[in-house]
């Protein structure tokens, strides 16, 4: 595997890690909109309170890594998706500050306002990330010179909105399983129910989107279907889809959380596999696509970045596991809580 391919897969891993980790944050945020009382909503906030910030770092690092490894993609896509990104950033800003601001004032009106900031600040990114992925899978209008010719409204096509819905449902399911691991009693029972219903929605949407993708972007399947990984990912994904409701019914939430994380990883892994070696297919002419070769940094930069990643990532993983281990178990509302 050459350096460009290694970086393609490293960025895929960063995106998958981000989707799994901030995915459950988004899910919990969306569910908080349905929280019944103050006590319940505080459990939502505190279930992800100590970890959401670290999870968002995956996005920041992913952005930095994309800039470093594939600057042409970073520049073209980010400027092309301008308004969508500005909305995304605004939503992330409101979500980030809702944790610190909400608990500082007792007034119910104040708290409700931050509940909405948290809820919609989570819902909007969950949809927008899906829409972004949808547009990439569908291909975006890039001309021979690598310039983006699309518009904001062009991004809101039915297919991409469908993918946005899929990601919303998937993240909310993922979040409700996470919340079940963090809560007790009635809230946990409801999380169990939500997760089961959302699983149903997820399966239906997944089938629709897969068929739709086949029709809209047949080029995604041309090469990828020759790879054994395509079938491995597919089998594991099907396995998770079958296994998840069994675990939910049995109330084995920790394992269910692992399985839904695996489902996200397999789904995104399959998408990455079908895009490879393209990063952004062009809808004007596939030959204009941005690929891991025509959009990459120089070999020296890719090499240097690889060394940085090999030094840094193991350290990050080690202390992240330690921190998640410290905060294992159910949410307890103490004087330190949000």
């Amino acid at each position, binding site marked *: 595997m050459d350096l460009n391919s290694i970086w393609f897969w490293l960025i895929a891993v960063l995106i998958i890690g981000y989707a799994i980790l901030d995915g459950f944050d988004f899910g919990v945020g969306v569910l908080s909109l349905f929280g019944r009382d103050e006590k319940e909503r505080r459990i939502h906030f505190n279930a992800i309170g100590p970890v959401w910030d670290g999870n968002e770092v995956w996005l920041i690092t992913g952005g930095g890594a994309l*800039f470093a490894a594939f600057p*042409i993609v970073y520049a073209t896509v980010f400027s092309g998706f301008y308004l969508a990104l500005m909305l995304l950033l605004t939503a992330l800003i409101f979500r980030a500050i809702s944790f610190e601001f909400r608990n500082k004032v007792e007034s119910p009106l104040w708290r409700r306002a931050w509940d909405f900031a948290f809820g919609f600040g989570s819902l909007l990114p969950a949809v927008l990330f899906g829409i972004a992925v949808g547009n990439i899978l569908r291909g975006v209008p890039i001309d021979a010179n690598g310039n983006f010719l699309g518009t904001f409204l062009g991004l809101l096509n039915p297919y991409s909105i469908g993918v946005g819905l899929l990601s919303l449902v998937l993240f909310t399911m993922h979040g409700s399983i996470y919340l079940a691991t963090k809560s007790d009693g009635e809230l946990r029972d409801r999380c169990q129910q939500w997760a089961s219903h959302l699983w149903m929605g997820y399966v239906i949407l997944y089938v629709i989107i897969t068929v739709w993708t086949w029709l809209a972007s047949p080029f995604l399947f041309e090469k990828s279907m020759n790879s054994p990984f395509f079938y491995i990912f597919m089998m594991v994904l099907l396995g998770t889809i079958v296994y998840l409701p069994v675990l939910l019914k049995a109330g084995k939430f920790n394992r269910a959380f692992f399985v839904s994380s695996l489902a996200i990883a397999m789904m995104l892994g399959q998408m990455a596999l079908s895009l490879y070696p393209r990063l952004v297919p062009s809808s004007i002419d596939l030959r204009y696509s941005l690929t891991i070769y025509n959009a990459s940094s120089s070999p020296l930069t890719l090499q240097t970045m690889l060394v940085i990643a090999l030094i840094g990532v193991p350290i990050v993983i080690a202390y992240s596991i330690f921190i998640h281990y*410290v905060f294992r178990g159910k949410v307890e509302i103490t004087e330190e809580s949000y």
Partner: protein
Amino acid sequence: MDALFLARLQFAFTIGFHFLFPPISIGLAWLLVIMEGLGWRKGDEGYVRMGKFFGKLLALTFAVGVATGIVMEFQFGTNWAVYSKFVGDIFGAPLAAEGIFAFFLESGFLGLYLFGRNKVSKGVHWFSILMVAVGATISAFWIIVANSWQQTPAGYVLRNGRAELTSFYDAVFNPSTVIRFLHTVDAALIAGAFFVAGIAAYLILKEKEVELAKRAMKIAVIFGLITSLLELMPFGHEHARQVARTQPEKFAAIEGMYTTQSGAPLIFFAIPFTKPLELKAKIELSGLLSWMTFGDVNAQIKGINEFPPENIPPLWLTFVSFHNMVVLGLYFIGVTLYAYIQLRRKKLFETTWLLKLFIWSIPLPLAACQLGWIAAEVGRQPWIVYGLLRTSEAHSPNVTAEEILFSIILFGLVYLLLGILYIYILVREVNHGPQSAKA
């Protein structure tokens, strides 16, 4: 209004607002390392409450810093696509390194610090705030690396229509990185010292938790004095000498050298006029600038007249922002030195006017940071990468003026709200005092 102007306006305004928060976070984190360390080693409950109180303010500041910082990570791509393509081979690596080496450390351990006080041992808890401070400082390092490369590019070759990396070491440790890093981080430490000192002074005057506030004030005054002195000498001085050698246009602009002179004077005060180019009401000491810069009172300093007009930075703004930053820097030394003397004479806490002055001085180091940043960045103009790429050629060609106007209004409103809420909550928390401090 054209897209270029609006893109510049948005960048200046979003990064200026963001840059209010990291200096407090960095400075406060290091002061918390001291406070929590004292609490741990001495087993003193007072320091623990102090830590909880200021830790809460750190969490608040950090959150706004993160929220506004993520905009910066994306903005190079959204608004400066040509720039991103040109520098991506070099500029992206420090941003990614910041994520891997700094942000994970900072945010992971901040959670542990804030919520883990009763879950881990005291030693591990202290280690967690240390890692927050270290992470915040490493983060500053990589951002300074990226910015310094824009100022004094090195370790690259122009190839394939872009700057390509030839030596990572040379690019990271380009001629301005180390001194800029020391100068900027020390400024953040000063901001932290004045933040703690001002809040402690307020508590003393309000007669809330006076004993605890006095101890915090003492730490902050000593910390502030040391960092303020270091900022003038050697950091500020060496940084200026570096600019003189590597970016002579900028140096001439900030020092007000409009014509080349031997035995150039250091200008302490002047009112700059641009048409015609002239400094009025000058107070200067001749030969001093030459001596400070090159160690020789007769050394020649290049003036603005030596450079082609298309390569000259805006003169009024650079001169005014630089000089006001220096004035503030001297003020920080003066006020902390006097406070230290009063502390030694055991009169500090009775000197009401000085305590009041500290309260009003909380925003001044942040003002100095903003002014220094304006001098550095406006002084780099008309280049976005000094000598290689002009700002006027670097923005995203396919993002329209209307789109940028929309996002400026959007961020303008959001940041206005953020600023008001931050101050409102900060004042509220301080008024609650350490008594009711929750993490």
